[in-house]
């Protein structure tokens, strides 16, 4: 974790001891969120007799999968201290084109690589505009949020695309060893992302650039390359999510993924990522996504008003960031 203090105090051993003790007391925020999620699960298990049933758990596994994949992709730009606001629109555009290709009887095995290529191309455009043209990521991807949604409506005429082949059900409606296939796919994507961030040079460069882009550049990290790869990953995962949405909804829908970017950012932040860069884990993103899915599911099962659900989600984001800040302050105080 990049949560260790950036400077080491040069004082006597007492300071080192104090710092070590502060580190022992500082758990990553994911742990608190995980604990809270478990509490919510226990609470829902007590208050709703349907919550901890096999059917509901498998529902939730399918519900969380797509959100988590988008959040995993979103994490890469966030670690760089960037952001990608276009992921929801990219999911819609890639999804609708995927659906249109399938409706035109293109085989899935051809439509899939084409959609993946489109996702990578979009990521490349985002990355180049940010790194080469020097436009802030927020603006580039805000333009993408609007522009790619517009393209989605243009190519579809604003209409849903039906007539998907039944082979698509293999993804959305089957299970592998009792676990929904979508969840398995999400887990694979998550594990690969975790590996990249944790154990590869590329991953460590991401944290380095997010912590201090200038020093990263000075030690010889190819910032351009890492930036391009990160935005490509965000768009690629959005394209995965777009295709999975088509499979889950059994249609291409131009309204798909509206607001998904905010959901993804919220999941990453609740899972311990910092919008100032340098911090964030795949596990945290996953826990954040699970928590939001749980709240939605719990609200539905308990019949809590949809409007209260939004209020609760908002409070939760604020609370988590507050807890995280308190921790950082405490740590800084000790130092």
């Amino acid at each position, binding site marked *: 974790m990049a949560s260790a203090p950036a400077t080491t105090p040069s004082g006597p051993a007492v300071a080192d001891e104090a710092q070590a003790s502060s580190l022992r007391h500082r758990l990553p925020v994911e742990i608190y969120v995980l604990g809270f999620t478990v509490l919510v699960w226990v609470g829902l298990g007590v208050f709703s007799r349907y919550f901890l049933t096999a059917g*509901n758990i498998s529902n939730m596994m399918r519900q969380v999968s797509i959100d988590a994949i988008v959040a995993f992709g979103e994490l890469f730009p966030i670690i760089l201290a960037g952001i990608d606001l276009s992921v929801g629109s990219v999911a819609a555009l890639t999804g609708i084109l995927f659906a249109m290709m399938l409706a035109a009887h293109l085989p899935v095995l051809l439509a899939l690589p084409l959609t993946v290529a489109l996702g990578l191309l979009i990521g490349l455009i985002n990355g180049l505009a940010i790194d080469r043209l020097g436009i802030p990521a927020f603006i580039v991807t805000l333009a993408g949020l609007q522009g790619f949604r517009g393209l989605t409506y243009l190519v579809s005429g604003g*209409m849903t695309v039906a*007539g998907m082949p039944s082979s698509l059900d293999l993804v959305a409606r089957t299970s592998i060893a009792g676990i929904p296939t979508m969840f398995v796919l999400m887990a694979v994507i998550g594990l690969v992302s975790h590996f990249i961030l944790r154990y590869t040079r590329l991953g460590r460069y991401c944290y380095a650039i997010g912590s201090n882009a200038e020093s990263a550049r000075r030690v010889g990290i190819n910032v351009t390359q890492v930036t391009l790869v990160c935005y490509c990953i965000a768009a690629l995962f959005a394209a995965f999510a777009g295709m999975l949405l088509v499979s889950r909804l059994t249609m291409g829908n131009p309204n798909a993924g509206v607001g998904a970017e905010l959901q993804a950012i919220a999941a990453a932040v609740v899972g311990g990522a910092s919008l100032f860069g340098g911090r964030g884990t795949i596990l945290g993103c996953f826990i954040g996504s699970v928590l939001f899915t749980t709240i939605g599911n719990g609200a*539905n099962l308990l019949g809590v*008003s949809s409007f209260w659900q939004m209020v609760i989600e908002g409070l939760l984001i604020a609370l988590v960031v507050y807890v995280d800040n308190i921790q950082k302050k405490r740590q800084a105080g000790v130092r």
Partner: protein
Amino acid sequence: MKKLLLLAAATVGLGLTAQAPARAADFSKARIDVIVKATTSQYWATVFDGARAAAKVLGLQISTLGATSEADVAGEVTIMENAIASKPTAIVIAATNAAALAKPIAHATAAGIPVIVVDSDANTSKYVTFLATNNHTGGVKAADELARCIKARTGKVAGQMAYLTALAGAQSLNDRDKGFLDELKKYPGLKIVAHRTGNNDPARALTDSEDILTRNPHLVGIFADNEIEGDGAGTALSEKNLGSKVCLVSFDTSSEEINFVKKGVIDALIVQNPFMMGYAGVWYALAAAHGVVFPHYVDSGVSVVTKANIDSPAMAGLLNPKKYTLTPFLGE
């Protein structure tokens, strides 16, 4: 309902002949702005189709305008203000928000531009006529269809019901829900046990439907108040193989919903006539510009589409505007 529509159309015919005695009147200089709530949905595309058909028959110009999202109230106000400034012959508009569009519509009328309000009303009476679906009636029909379906399946009109609202704060959806709930009082055996409000998000409509089915295993019926919720509920039912157990009635139509009706997952669609809103809207607008007076409200009608009548020619045009055949009177 249909009679009233024809009556109004007859007035138009009379008005036009009175103003322009020559049969081949030249309206090529007339321009009518058609403003819808969102240019991105099938429903509004159909309104445009109807408007274009009328423009072709009448030989006039139309501009098809609208914001990209129904949630963009300010966007529609801006479009309306720009339209007024460009001085069209008349304006046909569907008000995204009754309060926000009231003033712009009154301004247009004050500027001497006749306004025909279609589909969704505004909080003003300063327009020519309101041509729309009676959403309350549609909700009533939905409740009756559900009761009929539940009786056919279980032998009695009793059990747990759920309904799905697509978006908060939309007048037409509120009216549908109210009509549905009002009519449900006639069937004391049917009890509402769940209600969710979505955000016109297809994935959320599906999630909400799945969770409702989890929470209420004895559910006998669902009312979805637009096609996005209907798609979601239909997908959830077919996912869980409950299509033959839970009755589902949805407002509006999408290509997937039509498949669901054919498969028996959706029992009835409450279908509006957006083509006629666009078609008659443009025709009325031109007539109003020539001084024809209209009743304050004209009902454009709702139809109930079921597996039994889905392939009938009468329904074909409602489900697919490309197959819309105009009645001899309204045609050329």
